[in-house]
């Protein structure tokens, strides 16, 4: 582990009782969902992690507990460090507290989580879908969502397929 990261992970350990692991020089810190806002605030204010580079999730189906890892990739410009926070979430109805108050970029990124994984950001100011149309069923990046296809239409069966195509309603 990078020498400069050690005191930061130590501080997280003391405050939140986290576990950490390292892979290819990247430090991953596992933290509970209820602590994430406090941890992000601590990292931003005390350890100069000004930038939330990425906020996304990984679906580990068929494993159900935890099924998701929500990933917060943080960057410190002043110290030139990277740190990854991970929140494991169980299957069922996954919730995370919103980080919009700490990093405003989380606003759109959490909408993407809601849209793509169905992970609900509690307290989000504008919880709507972002990429898929309003009213879509399901969450496309979940492993149990089929890849899907579009039926090719030819002259002889154009109308027949057109009738069952899922167009947006007027």
């Amino acid at each position, binding site marked *: 582990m990078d020498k400069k990261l050690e005191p930061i992970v130590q501080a997280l350990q003391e405050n939140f009782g986290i576990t950490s692991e390292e892979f290819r020089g990247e430090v991953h810190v596992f933290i509970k969902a209820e602590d994430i806002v406090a941890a992000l605030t601590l990292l931003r204010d005390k350890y100069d992690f000004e930038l939330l*580079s990425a906020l*996304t999730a990984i679906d580990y189906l068929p494993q159900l507990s935890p099924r998701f890892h929500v990933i917060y990739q943080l960057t410190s410009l002043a110290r030139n460090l990277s740190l990854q926070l991970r929140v494991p979430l169980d299957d069922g109805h996954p919730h995370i507290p919103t980080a919009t108050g700490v990093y*405003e*970029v989380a606003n759109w990124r959490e909408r993407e989580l809601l849209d793509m994984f169905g992970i609900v950001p509690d307290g989000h100011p*504008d919880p709507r879908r*972002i*990429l898929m149309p309003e009213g879509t*069923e399901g969450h496309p*990046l979940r492993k149990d969502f089929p890849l899907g296809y579009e039926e090719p239409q030819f002259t002889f069966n154009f109308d027949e397929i057109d009738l069952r195509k899922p167009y947006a309603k007027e």
Partner: protein
Amino acid sequence: MAQLEEVSVEQFKHLVSERALTGETMLLNMGPQHPSTHGVLRLLLELDGEVVINAIPDIGYLHTGIEKNIEAKTYLKAEVMTDRLDYMNNMGNNLVYCMAVEKLVELDVPERALTIRVILAELERVNSHLVWIGTFGLDLAAMSMFLYAFRERERILDIKELISGQRMMTTFIRPGGIWRDVPVEFESAVRDFIRMMPKRIDEYEALLTKNPLFLDRLLGIGKLDPAVALQHGVTGPMLRASGVNWDLRKARPYLGYEQYDFNVPVRTEGDTYARYIVRVEEMRESLKIIEQALNKLPLGPVNSNNRKFVPPPRSELGVSMEALIHHFKLWTEGFPAPNADIYQAVESPRGELGVLLAGDGGPKPRRCHWRTPSFDNLSVLPKIVKGHLVADLVAILASVDIVLGDIDR
């Protein structure tokens, strides 16, 4: 297929001010089909006369599900889709994807391939900025700028065609190296280009930089505070135009960028004009890097000889049984990657382009998330357009340099 349901207006009421509900302000749709939105971006504007009170971006019209599709392909085959994400920076997307795969499976890359990658990445940066300066001029009614910039861009596309046979979707950079060595004409073609280009940039600057009409449209428009920029995850030229010196090529050198001598242009004004200056300067710096890379271009192999990950050259297939087996295995089954994940970021023309690549122990990725710079750069737009005129909105949107393929993925 999922069915689309009826959507009520009620759930969108909180997006606009209360004055819109009484009809005091006007709601106007800009896009999705609008020339100055650079693709299919819809902006819902709340206007008080000519003044923008609120802008609500609506994205997703170009959503292609590439992240989902990558999960169904092997590591080698998924790369074809990465070109299509940010279609102004094809090589850059290949580059970050390949670097992510190389980091995940610990693959080495020979020196010559690294240097060629630097040349291509910087050519792509010039290419992207040329398209940007052209469309920026077009949005501000400098039609000739568009034609000049695309004339020069054509030279870069010719170079890409020369090395890969394709003008845009090249898939030239591959895990472990590059597709194949560049032809002998490559060096003279690139040298011709970098000899011609500085004069052409001078010409653009003569047209625009001190043009009073241009200055009137840009100075003090769309000011972005560095603290707000960082809160919104803004990176790249937009962040550097706000006075934050952050360039991954300098801060965390990859591909041996530490060997090259170049500056990172930074302006402190944070307005639309500063973004223009930063990008023009960046083109000049990229040309400097290309020249240094060409001068030191070493000889040697362009692919790792780790046959467990890199397919053998065509010439070996006829004479070596081993090579044939490796070729067959790599293109049918693919190679396994560990059950773990890594995050790899590079500096794209628009900012920090990152890939979070998660393996599952098998030949297909579990997850490939693209942290695309345009997505976060666009999210700051509602903040910086408030109080400006609709005509200024066009200038600000152009200065953000969004690519919709990059945003919607």
